[in-house]
């Protein structure tokens, strides 16, 4: 019933607007079209100027209302560079924005039709045109220069001491694999994926490097320690989006990608900084991946080295979980398996 009324009111509004519009057409014919046209011309010219002024106030108001909700301090060293680049671009484009918009609406108002003015025949001026080709070219060269400089810094090789974590997206969740004590990821093959057998990533169990690999549902990182993410996907294209770190990289099935960054603040520090005790780093899927795309959320925890070490030790290697389920009598002590695996690795290394 309510919807019906809304539609009725809308239809009524349409009708009234239309009648007024039609009437105004008749009136203008009666009053002399030329006179009526000049009057609407003045009204529209005034409205253009008013739009400029109100619009600029609106831009200011919008900024006041929303500036507290965006960005915040970047939580990674790379993010700082991205923010710097963002502010450089904002400054340059901001200047251009205000100058051109003001000129556009001011000219429209100032040069509205008037009986006393004749339009000025001004087809071209090479000097002017060269000036406004060269100036944008210089400004853009600067932007390209800064941009590429930072781009190579960010996308260059990760430092040697970076920790590595493998991130795998699938509809609609994230899984993280840590290489364990040996620091090497075991081999995997997608046809081995059997979540029901506790092998969600398709690890090859006869590869000893796999025996200490840990799979988790939260991404734990160490503050001030560079981390290199090796990103993949099981099914469709996903994207690892880390807003607070300003990082993003697609997860493509069949084509692993990488990105690295250095977290600057632990989750706790960030909570203090932002004055939000519940603060949490979130990992969002930024590439359309199906009906659960909007809910494909991961949690990132940045902590100190000690906290991290304590956490990682408490995690059970996937090898142990898989084999415990299959043959619980064999591996009653998961820690043993880890030690065995490490021993195997040590032997291979010899």
């Amino acid at each position, binding site marked *: 019933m309510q919807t019906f009324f809304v539609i009725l009111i809308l239809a009524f509004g349409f009708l009234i607007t239309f009648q007024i519009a*039609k009437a105004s057409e008749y009136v203008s*014919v009666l009053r002399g079209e030329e006179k009526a046209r000049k009057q609407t011309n003045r009204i529209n010219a005034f409205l253009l100027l008013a739009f400029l002024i109100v619009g600029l106030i609106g831009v200011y108001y919008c900024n006041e209302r929303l500036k507290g*909700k965006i960005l915040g301090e970047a939580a990674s060293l790379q993010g700082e560079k991205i923010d710097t680049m963002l502010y450089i671009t904002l400054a340059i484009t901001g200047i251009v924005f205000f100058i051109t918009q003001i000129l556009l609406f001011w000219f429209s108002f100032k040069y*509205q039709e008037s009986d006393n003015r004749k*339009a000025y025949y001004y087809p071209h001026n090479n000097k002017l045109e060269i000036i406004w080709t060269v100036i944008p070219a210089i400004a853009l060269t600067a932007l390209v220069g800064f941009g590429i400089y930072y781009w190579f810094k960010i996308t260059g090789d990760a430092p040697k001491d970076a920790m590595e974590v493998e991130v795998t997206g699938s509809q609609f969740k994230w899984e993280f694999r840590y290489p364990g004590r040996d620091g090497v990821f075991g081999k995997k093959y997608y046809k081995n994926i059997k979540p029901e057998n506790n092998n969600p990533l398709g690890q090859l169990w006869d590869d000893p490097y796999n025996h200490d690999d840990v799979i988790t549902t939260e991404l734990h990182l160490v503050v001030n320690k560079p981390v290199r993410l090796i990103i993949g996907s099981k099914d469709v294209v996903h994207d690892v*989006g880390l807003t607070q770190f*300003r990082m993003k990289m697609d997860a493509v099935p*069949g084509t692993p990608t990488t990105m690295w960054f250095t977290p600057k603040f632990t989750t706790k520090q960030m909570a203090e900084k932002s004055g939000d005790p519940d603060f949490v780093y979130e990992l969002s899927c930024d590439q359309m991946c199906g*009906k659960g795309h*909007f809910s494909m959320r991961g949690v990132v925890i940045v902590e100190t080295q000690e906290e991290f070490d304590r956490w990682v030790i408490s995690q059970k290697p996937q090898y142990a979980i898989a084999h415990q389920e299959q043959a619980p009598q064999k591996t009653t002590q998961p820690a043993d398996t880890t030690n065995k695996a490490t021993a195997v690795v040590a032997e291979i290394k010899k």
Partner: protein
Amino acid sequence: MSNEINPHGQPEIVTRHDIHHDEHHVHHHKETFITKYIFSQDHKTIGKQFLITGIAWAIIGGLFSVLFRLQLGFPGQTFPILETFFGRYARGGQIQPEFYYALITMHGTVLVFFVLTAGLSGTFANLLIPLQCGARDMASPFLNMLSYWFFFLASVVMVSSLFVSTGPASGGWTMYPPLSALGAANDGSKLGTDLWLVAMALFVVSSLLGGLNYISTILNMRTKGMSMTRLPLTIWALFFTAILGVLSFPVLLSGFILLLFDRNLGTSFYLSDIFISQTGQALPNEGGSAILYQHLFWFLGHPEVYIIILPSMGMVSEVLAVNSRKPIFGYMAMVGSLFAITILAFLVWAHHMFVTGLNPFLGSIFVLLTLLIAVPSAIKVFNWLTTLWRGNIRFTPATLFSIGFVSLFISGGLTGVFLGNSTIDIHLHDTKFIVAHFHIVMGVASFFGMFAGVYHWFPKMFGRYLNNTLGFIHFWVTMIGAYMIFWPMHYEGLAGVPRRYLDLSGWHNFNKFVELNKMITVVSIIVFAVQLLFIFNFFYSIFKGRKVRHQNPWGANTLEWTTPIRPGHGNWTGEIPEVHRWAYDYGKDGREFIPQTEPIGKGEGHH
């Protein structure tokens, strides 16, 4: 009639063409309703067919955006009426995720391709190219008719995909595989996507038939004296648009065909290493590259945005010059910048792929080429500003929409400088920032160009005027609304809110724009309602609008205003007029305007 086999120079071709058509005119064969209005080969009628089909699509595409904005603005709230209309897609009066993704996919597809490509280029290239070049019709009126009917067929297939039981395609308008290739991963990727691909293939055929026609008409069928440098900027823009389409649509088609193969024939162009958790099944496909599709898609996808905006740029240039009663400033620079944009359009596609794992060195090349586009764009903006400067501006609805276009093009163009820079793109990629950016610069701005064109050439199309008061209401509400919708959306993007999220309530860091999203939804409903008002004005005025009584109502120089008020098939009743000057002699030597057909006077200044 074939121009290609004529070995002689161009004026002769035109003359022969004339004679042929004049004969044709004398023995005018009887036109039935079907040949006149349905299977018409008259370029003007075909243009109107494109426009009206485009309007129908715009209502559908716009309505879809209102529906998903309801979900975005009021997540969790129920709208029982939605269940009445959409059944299980809106169970309990709430838009279901599958439905939401189908809506955004179809919104994008419909508006980018069916409205702003076919509806815009199709309408104005058909209407204006013969009229402004001085030709009786297109180079091949029959292919031109086929172009429309292929578009119609594409529309029928696309509409039918809305009604299949698994729903229409819902993988986003870019249709990235593997999501779009795997029915098991996504309901919309079942029959809906096959229909989507077939519809798009038909659409590409339509677009190629049209484009080839536009190019050959502009190159071969200009009237005597109409050298390329005397063409109005509308024609230059439509010319470059057609070239872009002809060179890039085939690449898109190849991408779609490979996707159809992957879907139905078991090939592995795009598929590799896939395990689908819903079915617990690993697919046999290995060795394909999902990124290959993105290259093929964006090789059209990027030129596509220029296919959308160039016709608007052309029409805005024309409308601004006519209504400020001044020549367009820097005609050659305008043509040159259109040319530069056309060339660069082919060289920047990978800026959509900075975060796909693209080689960073390659990325840096694309940054350079992308930001280069800002230079010709800046030239255009400064030239439009200088065209207004010291003019004597008449604010018709068309002028207002043109000024609005320039304003939006500046705002949206500048945010492109952020996104084109790969460093910043890492943060802003696939957030609401990019949504705001391309809606302003490509969506709304192109619509403004299209509106300017409709208001300006409506008298030529139908011999009647649109109602001005409704035109002014339409402009002001749309202009204010467009900024209110998309300006604050940039802030959401800066905060990292990803695009294509239908509900932010599960997110700690994104769920802080509740009020803003409500406001945007309410404004978008108002703006949509005002578009309906425009459409009403359009159809009402076709039949009941104020009649045009003057052959040249805007006091314009170009050739279309030398035809009768309601031109028949063949456009000019007598000979096609000869052209003696460029299209922009406004305010010259104390005269308000000098039509292109007027010979250069003795001692007249050269432009």
